[in-house]
């Protein structure tokens, strides 16, 4: 297990994730002139759990871990969202991420609500056996909270297909039969979907390519910097490289590498697997996050954690297009600074939605006990992402607003509409 997409948070964060999420929601609600009752319902999570659970470590000592699961909204269907293992994870962060999942699922029009979970732990500090025990005990604590018709977790920062396999197995043992649809992002051999591993990166590539095209720039030959080289960043870098993009800089948790002639993501991945970081890879120059963010490039892919571009450093960004592969990497107070400078941002709920779209495909395949070939998954993903991109573009132009507000307005309107039509119980 490697820590995925782990970049440290800025030393002076201007807005926390939950502040960012609420600010974005409020702007969309204002634009829609949404009523006070709808705002009150959508502004808070529907349900949230905090669990403290003991796990025996390899040395025999017992440590108590804290985990969270937040279901923000389920008006449009079962809740959907990843589980992250990260030392900085807390309830407010999970609340923000759950809210973003609600909007993301609504924007791409898959029949899910939004959820998120996490355990406050650094998975790099645990052995594989310890990690399995933490995962299984956390999954056990979520018995009845998650399920194919209730809430379906998926991999996130610090978790992967193996984590999902342990969760599925634990819940299946409790149920007395195999329940493949309880999680997505599983190994293909356990009912995972072909193409799921690259799905988020592929969605980032699709949307970035379209945003670049609108700016008159072809991806083939474009200069690209990528922050994060985990689940999302590595796939995006590889897929952009395959389409002719020139990767001039990439950073990860251990440092960064740059080369004006272009980096080979396959070589970096091999180096990462040997050293645990891409830093120090042969034939590269070192670069840090501040240096990467200020590079004069056509495309900047932010595929690490939230709060990376803030009002404190937005003036230094020189990219033409920013693709938000991570959730909330640009804070709301940085948005107008970037927009004033003509920098186009592809918002997270559109840019990185490829993962949840293929998760939806996986869930559907599991419910049908059927599997689709990889090319069919990729083509359906392209159709869904392109449709969402088109809708955001039309709304942005018609309403004269920026892309992020257009995306959130569409998403919030869909969820508010579903809530209103369902009505209040009792």
């Amino acid at each position, binding site marked *: 297990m490697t820590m995925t997409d782990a970049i440290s948070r800025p030393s002076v964060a201007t807005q926390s994730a939950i502040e960012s999420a609420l600010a974005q929601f409020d702007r969309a609600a204002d634009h*829609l*002139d*949404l*009523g*006070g*009752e*709808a705002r009150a319902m959508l502004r808070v999570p529907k349900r949230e759990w905090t669990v403290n659970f003991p796990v025996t470590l390899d040395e025999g000592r017992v440590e108590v871990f804290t985990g969270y699961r937040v279901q923000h909204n389920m008006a449009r269907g079962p809740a959907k969202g990843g589980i992250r293992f990260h030392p900085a994870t807390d309830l407010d962060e999970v609340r923000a991420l759950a809210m973003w999942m609600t909007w993301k699922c609504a924007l791409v029009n898959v029949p899910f609500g939004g959820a998120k979970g996490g355990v406050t732990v650094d998975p790099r500090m645990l052995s594989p056996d310890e990690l399995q025990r933490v995962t299984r005990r956390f999954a056990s604590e979520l018995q009845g909270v998650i399920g194919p018709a209730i809430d379906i977790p998926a991999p996130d920062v610090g978790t992967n297909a193996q984590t999902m396999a342990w969760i599925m197995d634990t819940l299946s043992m409790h149920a007395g039969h195999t329940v493949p649809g309880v999680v997505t992002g599983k190994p293909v051999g356990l009912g995972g979907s072909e193409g799921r591993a690259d799905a988020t990166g592929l969605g980032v590539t699709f949307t970035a390519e379209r945003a670049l095209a609108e700016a008159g720039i072809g991806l083939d030959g474009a200069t690209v910097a990528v922050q994060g080289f985990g689940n999302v960043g590595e796939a995006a870098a590889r897929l952009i490289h395959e389409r002719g993009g020139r990767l001039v800089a990439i950073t990860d948790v251990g440092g960064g590498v740059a080369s004006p002639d272009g980096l080979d993501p396959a070589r970096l991945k091999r180096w990462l697997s040997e050293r645990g970081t891409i830093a120090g890879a042969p034939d590269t120059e070192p670069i840090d996050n501040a240096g990467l963010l200020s590079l004069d490039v056509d495309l900047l892919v932010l595929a690490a954690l939230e709060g990376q571009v803030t009002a404190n450093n937005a003036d230094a960004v020189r990219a033409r297009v920013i693709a938000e592969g991570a959730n909330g990497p640009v804070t709301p107070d940085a948005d107008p600074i970037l927009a004033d400078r003509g920098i186009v941002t592809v918002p997270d709920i559109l840019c990185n939605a490829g993962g949840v779209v293929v998760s939806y495909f996986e869930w559907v395949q599991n419910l049908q006990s059927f599997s689709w070939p990889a090319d069919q998954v990729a083509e359906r993903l392209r159709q869904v992402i392109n449709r969402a991109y088109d*809708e955001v573009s*039309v*709304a942005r132009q*018609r*309403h*004269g*607003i920026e892309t992020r507000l257009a995306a959130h*307005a*569409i998403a919030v*309107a*869909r969820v*508010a*509409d579903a809530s*209103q039509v369902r009505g209040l119980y009792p």
Partner: protein
Amino acid sequence: MNAQLDVAAESQAPWQLIRRPVTVRGVPRHLRLVRFDRGWLASVDTLSGPTLGTDQSPYLAAHRALEPLGVGITESMVLVGPLVALIPPSERDQIE
């Protein structure tokens, strides 16, 4: 797209009417949006009579009115377009 804003004749106008020409599935129609203190009413004429939608949000109200014609929420938002610009500046403070 042209739009027309009518305000009730009374000095303390309790409502505003916005007539929005829209084209739905190739058929030109007039979407009527009426703003009251507590929300919006939307309506469009169809062969089977006028539709009716109400909500505190003009976009959700318009969606209710346009849904019988097969128009989704996103398309409704696009058809209605921006609304704040139609309200006289002196009255914008009253919108919220």
